[in-house]
């Protein structure tokens, strides 16, 4: 039973991380109806930002600042830079294509994905960059309940993930900006006719979604220790799967989808073998699509004729 709970904790942790990436993916789909395949690469950029912050302050073994401060800087910088990068991508790559057929921005998104991956390869090299998290966060610190251990990094990811998800949900549901985001997602022209600044709202959505991906990238660096230019690809696919399983465009759906995929992966890896984890994740996608094509929490689209 202890093993079960240990896998549960591990699954929730990676699930929180997937959920944060899936949220941005789903939000962007919500306002632009665009599958932003470059989204996973923003997560990769976030992971690099975290790595370079560690280097900047002396490296994992000889940090010149206290660890909590380091973490704050890592997360804040990753959120800000990656959020800004997302806004720039929207402004220069997607906005000119806003009224083009939907295939055009989709292809562009794939192009941006390759661009970011290649740029990272060129700038940062092909080698794995290592966070060396255990050198500055004691791997054995944390909470132990019975024989289940939740280590400090997992606690950090779970707590931050929870705060960010609740915060985003509050923002979208209860603030004026959130209402404008939902209005643009539901009917862009109707929102425009009321005076909603559509360009600003879309840019804001990209900022929030990309910032969450940046934060998730740092979390991934801390959790999995390794960063390279290709980690965005599989993360992007999993975020896509999570968003679709939960119901694309739905914020609670993206959270649920992310957690489900994290849990599924963790249990398959724990009880069977990590070989089967991707098989199961994408199998889950197909199964949900067969039963509920609009996703678990998605709304069925009424086709008007």
């Amino acid at each position, binding site marked *: 039973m202890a093993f079960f709970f240990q896998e549960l904790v591990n699954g929730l942790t990676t699930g929180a991380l997937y959920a944060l990436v899936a949220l941005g993916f789903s939000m962007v789909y919500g306002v632009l109806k665009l599958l932003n395949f470059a989204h996973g690469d923003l997560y990769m950029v976030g992971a690099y930002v975290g790595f370079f912050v560690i280097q900047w302050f002396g490296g994992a073994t000889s940090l010149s600042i206290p660890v909590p401060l380091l973490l704050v800087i890592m997360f804040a910088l990753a959120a800000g830079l990656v959020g800004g990068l997302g806004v720039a991508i929207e402004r220069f790559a997607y906005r000119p294509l806003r009224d083009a057929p939907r295939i055009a921005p989709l292809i562009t998104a794939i192009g941006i994905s390759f661009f970011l991956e290649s740029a990272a390869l060129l700038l940062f090299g092909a080698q794995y960059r290592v966070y060396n998290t255990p050198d500055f966060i004691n791997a054995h610190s944390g909470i132990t309940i019975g024989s289940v251990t939740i280590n400090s990094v997992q606690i950090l990811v779970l707590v931050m993930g929870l705060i960010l998800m609740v915060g985003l949900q509050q923002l979208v549901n209860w603030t*004026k900006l959130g*209402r*404008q985001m*939902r*209005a643009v997602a*539901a*009917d862009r*022209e*109707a*929102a*425009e*006719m*009321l*005076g*909603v*600044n559509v360009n600003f709202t879309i840019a804001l959505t990209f900022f929030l979604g990309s910032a969450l991906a940046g934060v998730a990238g740092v979390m991934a660096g801390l959790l999995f220790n390794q960063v390279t230019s290709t980690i965005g690809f599989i993360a992007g696919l999993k975020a896509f799967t999570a968003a679709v399983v939960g119901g694309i465009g739905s914020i609670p759906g993206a959270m649920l989808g992310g957690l489900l995929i994290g849990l599924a992966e963790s249990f398959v890896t724990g009880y069977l073998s990590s070989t089967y984890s991707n098989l199961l994740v994408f199998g889950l996608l197909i199964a949900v699509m067969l039963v509920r094509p609009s996703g678990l929490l998605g*709304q069925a689209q009424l086709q008007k004729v």
Partner: protein
Amino acid sequence: MLLSLESVTTYYGQMRILEGISLNVAEGEMVCLLGGNASGKSTTLKTILGIVRPRTGQVLLDGEDVTQWQVPQRISAGLAIVPENRRLFGQMTVRENLELGAVLRGGEKLDDDFDRVHTLFPRLLERRGQLAGTLSGGEQQMVAMGRALMSRPRLLLMDEPSMGLSPALVQQNFQIIKDIHATGVSVLMVEQNATMALSIANRGYVLSTGEIVLDGPASELLQSEDLKRAYLGR
């Protein structure tokens, strides 16, 4: 003059939708814009609001050229629209829909505006927490009108307000438009139901394939043989 269009020509891509439209609405007037399908009525309203830009010609508000203004600026200057098919946000509550109508009015208190809308449409007070998509057609029309009023417009643009409503509701709807007009809001209304529209409007224009073919006081247009011809085609 509250609103004037001066020889406005609007294109969608290569297709000319409006050809040299000139019309005006004075403060306090109710004007209707009539015409059959695809005559350019909705495009005229979109051009006035700034959703589409004319290729040539000018849009004037209070005599000022606003042709290059963005939609939010024009709304702040006193325009609001009840769009065709209402275009409510079905997954949001009635209250949220109304709040979105006041999106440009910064941090101001909206209590008075809600009161005004609820006085006009008491039903919306009862239904304020309900999702707009679950309301009846008549109630949805009330939300669309209330939402437009939340920006405190001086000129209300209405695009086919009676579309999709039962005959009884159409009657009720025109009564509401009269009530709104009576509160001092000028109205420019696009309608297919010419007789109904002319019975409450001061003046009317008739559009046919992007051109104004007829205009005059409502009472004259009601009698006009040309109106029937414009509708049925020459």
